[in-house]
């Protein structure tokens, strides 16, 4: 009974520790001539059936609706109101992608620690072995519906290792990423 509990708990902790390895980085870009201006009306652009790089995420309603809910909440908090797609001032597009990244190490071998998981008294020793991880990017665009010009782009990048293994973990990651991306949107 104890072993049945310990193993899943250990895996959960390991998975969570991986998330913290590669922190989520958030960036944004505002078109120089674009006017974010006063709060406007918005709608989501048509679904784009682009491949995400992970079959579990392709055409996944649970993911897209979670992103939409978070974006809507953040836009409404900034005074935006929902509108019909044909009349909205701003169309929101988003896309996610997952790619495997190889993390290399450029330390001199003498600086590397000798054994995996064995703490060494000398702080300078490090595990120098390269490792691979799933890197995810979530990108959100605000586009002027009339001119089709990109007004603003925000995106988050970070490790997705294990995130898609459980629905709750995916939802937590989406909530966090979208909130942080949308914080970059200039206040009107």
């Amino acid at each position, binding site marked *: 009974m104890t072993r049945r509990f310990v193993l899943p708990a250990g*895996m959960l902790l*390991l*998975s969570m*520790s*991986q998330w*913290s*390895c*590669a922190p989520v980085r958030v960036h944004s870009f505002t078109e120089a001539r674009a006017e974010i201006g006063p709060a406007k009306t918005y709608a989501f652009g048509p679904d784009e*059936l682009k*491949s995400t*790089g*992970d*079959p*579990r995420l*392709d*055409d*996944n*309603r*649970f*993911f897209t609706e979670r992103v939409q809910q978070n974006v809507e909440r953040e836009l409404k908090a900034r005074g935006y109101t929902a509108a019909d797609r044909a009349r909205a001032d701003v169309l929101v597009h988003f896309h996610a992608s997952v790619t*495997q990244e*190889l993390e290399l190490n450029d330390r001199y*071998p003498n600086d*590397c*620690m*000798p*054994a*995996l*998981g064995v703490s060494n008294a000398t702080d300078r*020793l*490090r*595990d120098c*072995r*390269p*490792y*691979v*991880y799933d890197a995810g990017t979530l990108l959100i665009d605000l586009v002027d519906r009339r001119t089709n010009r990109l007004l603003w782009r925000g995106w988050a990048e970070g490790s997705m*290792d*294990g995130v*898609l*293994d*459980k*629905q709750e973990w*995916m939802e937590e990651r989406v909530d966090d990423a979208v909130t942080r991306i949308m914080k970059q949107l200039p206040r009107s």
Partner: protein
Amino acid sequence: MRRSCAAAVLTWLMCSACAPFHSGAFVDRDVNFSTYRTYTWTAAPPQADDAASASGAALAADTELRDRVMGEVERQLAARGLRGPSQKRPDLLIRYRAAVTPRLQVSTSGAPNAAPYGNCSYDCFTRVDEYETATLVLDVIDARTRKLIWRGWTRDDLKEFADSDQSAERLRKAIDDMMTKFPADERSGGRS
């Protein structure tokens, strides 16, 4: 921090290698699954990625795999009280997709007398190998609303999806494991 992170990642990779396969599910928590009675199969929309590699195209066209998957899923659905495949106004539409994803694996080897887990300090070398994983995605769609209400998935090394008898058993177990995530049906004794 960096050392502990790398250790965690490597440990996770080693644990993943021990696991026979990997499966999970997404579910619409607002749906009452006990109201569904019948189902039928529907084709999954084509994905550009599926034909991008030779092995992906081969997997998508593998009729033997398709028969195994459909047979096992039907058996599991029947055990949950669902009747089908039924062409007469089914409650649920079921579709599956088998996709191949290229992956990288990093391994470090040391001297023959090195401790377990490939520990080494100086006389070690690291290699990066490419391999392919097969992901089986099973979608359950409400036929009336056309909404995806459940997605199950199972993932394994592609070579394990080959057509030997041993792999057939492995595939069956993988699907069974995935289907344990399908919401419980009170009609079949609460199996979940």
